[in-house]
């Protein structure tokens, strides 16, 4: 079980968090093509190594946060709120 540093709550166990998706994705406007829409919907980086991920601190503060971590070593590099 990993320990994630919530930028608001401090270190909490992974069980309090829910993985959402890659960080930094932007919802395209409605006029986007089917192909681009499905890319937005279904394609993920699935990085081996450094990754920026969006997590939800579901059982704690309920905030969406961005966790930069290494998917290979599970080292957490940084975390910040997803909403300014």
């Amino acid at each position, binding site marked *: 079980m990993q320990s994630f540093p919530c930028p*608001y709550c401090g270190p909490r166990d992974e069980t309090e968090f829910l993985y959402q998706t890659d960080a930094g994705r932007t919802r395209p406007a409605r006029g986007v093509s089917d192909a681009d829409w499905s890319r937005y919907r279904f394609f993920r980086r699935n990085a081996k190594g450094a990754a920026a991920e969006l997590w939800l601190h579901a059982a*704690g503060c309920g905030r969406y946060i961005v966790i930069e971590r290494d998917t290979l070593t599970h080292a957490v590099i940084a975390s910040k709120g997803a909403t300014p």
Partner: protein
Amino acid sequence: MRDRGLFWSPVPDWASARIERAGLVVRPASAPAALHLASGDLAAIATAFRLEGTLGPRDPIPDGDYALRLAPDRCLVVSGAATAGAAGAAAGLHLSEVTDGYLLIDVTGKAARDLLAQGTSYDFSDATVRPAESANLLIGRLRVAVARTGEGFRLHVERPTATALWTWLDEVSALGVGAERHSSRA
């Protein structure tokens, strides 16, 4: 069909419910006059309710009214006066009354911390100041808002989950709690 009501213990009579073990008393706190969810700037909420600040899991509950931080911009305001909501609304706060939505349970005694340590990984001894930290924790896999009291903790649990939390407190404390478990057997 099996009657699942036979499997699940009935909802306790909260007026008389009580768990007593060596070094431990668990009982519902006397119901506060009003509970509100209040959202917005935490400092503004504290000011409107005349509070020193808002509380996280390691903060002691003061005498009188207090507010538990649930999110960086939301708290649960526990008031002794039923009119507290009106005052808050007059101050322009975004409030929702939830007086009947929570049960407050006091876990008291020298074994209180050991009991909680059986349900949550939270580090109560960590002294780092975290002004936005949520009081929400998972205890026995149930979401509970926690703050400290004189010799223990007060658990704020949503009513529909209160029976599950009570059952957890009862069954787990029956397995043994307290300082004697921590003594070295060397």
